[in-house]
């Protein structure tokens, strides 16, 4: 058993933490872009596309993220575990974002679509100018919840060789054999990030409630 100083532990875990954090912007960006696109496509009611996207969503809701990670890593034969992890987590979470966006679009009254069409706007423009601006605030809490799950899922990526914080923890444990400080620190790391996101979500929800109290077609 080798003693590792607390400072050294922090430094090693810190490097791993940075790797973990570096994955997040990519996964969030890809899943957001993908989810918005697929959510819009699914709302356009084209039968075949609709079915395909629904199938994709059901499959991702049923399969554990670990399996997706392994499948992507071993099938795509990507050199880099980091890239595989980003691709896998993005594919996985896009499905959930798709559902969130689709739900948001469905909550807009039909009249908004009709009014948009009546001023000769094409469907894409109706989405861009009228629908999306109305839903993006309202789906923020659900998106935040989804990305909290994403943050927690990044704890799994050491299985495809990413040298993130859990990998660093294992390295230290092989030296010290003492799990407590390591996993406590790792736990705190994730807890802080997730709680931050949770607070942002609560804030967003408060502002949505103010914005959403707009009566439609009612008299004052």
């Amino acid at each position, binding site marked *: 058993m080798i003693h590792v100083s607390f400072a050294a532990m922090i430094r090693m875990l810190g490097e791993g933490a940075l790797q973990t954090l570096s994955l997040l912007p990519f996964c969030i960006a890809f899943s957001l872009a993908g989810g918005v696109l697929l959510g819009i496509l699914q709302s356009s009611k084209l039968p075949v596309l609709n079915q395909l996207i629904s199938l994709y969503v059901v499959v991702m809701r049923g399969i554990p993220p670990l399996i997706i990670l392994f499948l992507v890593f071993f099938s795509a034969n990507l050199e880099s575990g980091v890239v595989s992890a980003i691709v896998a987590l993005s594919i996985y979470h896009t499905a959930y974002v798709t559902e969130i966006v689709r739900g948001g679009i469905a909550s807009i009254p039909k009249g908004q679509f009709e*009014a948009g069409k*009546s*001023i000769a706007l094409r469907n894409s423009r109706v989405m861009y*100018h009228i629908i999306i601006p109305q839903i993006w605030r309202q789906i923020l809490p659900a998106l935040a919840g989804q990305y909290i799950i994403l943050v927690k899922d990044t704890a799994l990526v050491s299985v495809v060789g990413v040298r993130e914080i859990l990998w660093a923890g294992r390295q230290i444990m092989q030296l010290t054999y003492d799990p407590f400080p390591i996993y406590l620190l790792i736990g705190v790391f994730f807890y802080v990030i997730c709680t931050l996101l949770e607070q942002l979500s609560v804030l967003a929800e408060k502002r949505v409630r103010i914005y959403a109290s707009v009566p439609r*077609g009612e*008299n*004052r």
Partner: protein
Amino acid sequence: MKGDVLVEFDGVSKRFGETVVLENFSYQFREGNTHVICGRSGAGKSTLIRCINYIEPIDSGSLRFEGLEVSKQTAHEVRKRVAMVFQQFNLFPHLTILKNATLGPIHALKKPKRGAEASAFELLQRVGIGDKARSYPAQLSGGQQQRAAIVRALNMNPDLILFDEPTSALDPEMIGEVLDVMKGIAHEGRSMIVVTHEMGFAREAADLVSFMEDGRFIETKPAEQFFNSPEHETTQRFLRQILSA
């Protein structure tokens, strides 16, 4: 040109699931007319006008607007020339009144922003809400919102405006201000098709009035004749009901 055929229904049928709303409907709406359609709910009035700008697609038959067959492919073109005012206003809540009015002209008609805004301002003044241009729909009363919706429609400079029960969702004291605006539009000579229960408006501003039931025009007459000497029994009964209310 006034008097030309504007909208032509020829054997048009439309059903919602099991219910047949329009069956073999044929009629020609002419340019320059203010045509009021009245009738009981479920008669097919709203459906009829919603087919004109392809908000509802027809199932069979032929529907032409200014000679153009209304279809999925032509809907975009038709909607540039036909505007609609909805019962629930359907203003875009996240945009100012001004933006509501200029969205269509800028993005669909490709008009320059300044021109679109200038005409919007003028129209807003004319209907009496010029000071509300930078306000949001939630800050306006129901009557003001509907007037804003009318401006949104007018700013498209359409060849035809469709009104789908424009005052049915308003408190009684605000109905008048909206009807006044509509009367003004009628007097300008714009082509209008108005689905409404407001018989006072029909009397004053309509060129033609149709009583619709079961997906057919039972009776279509110039306004004065319609009210003073309706032919059909059903029309008479309807008029008695609605005028005594």
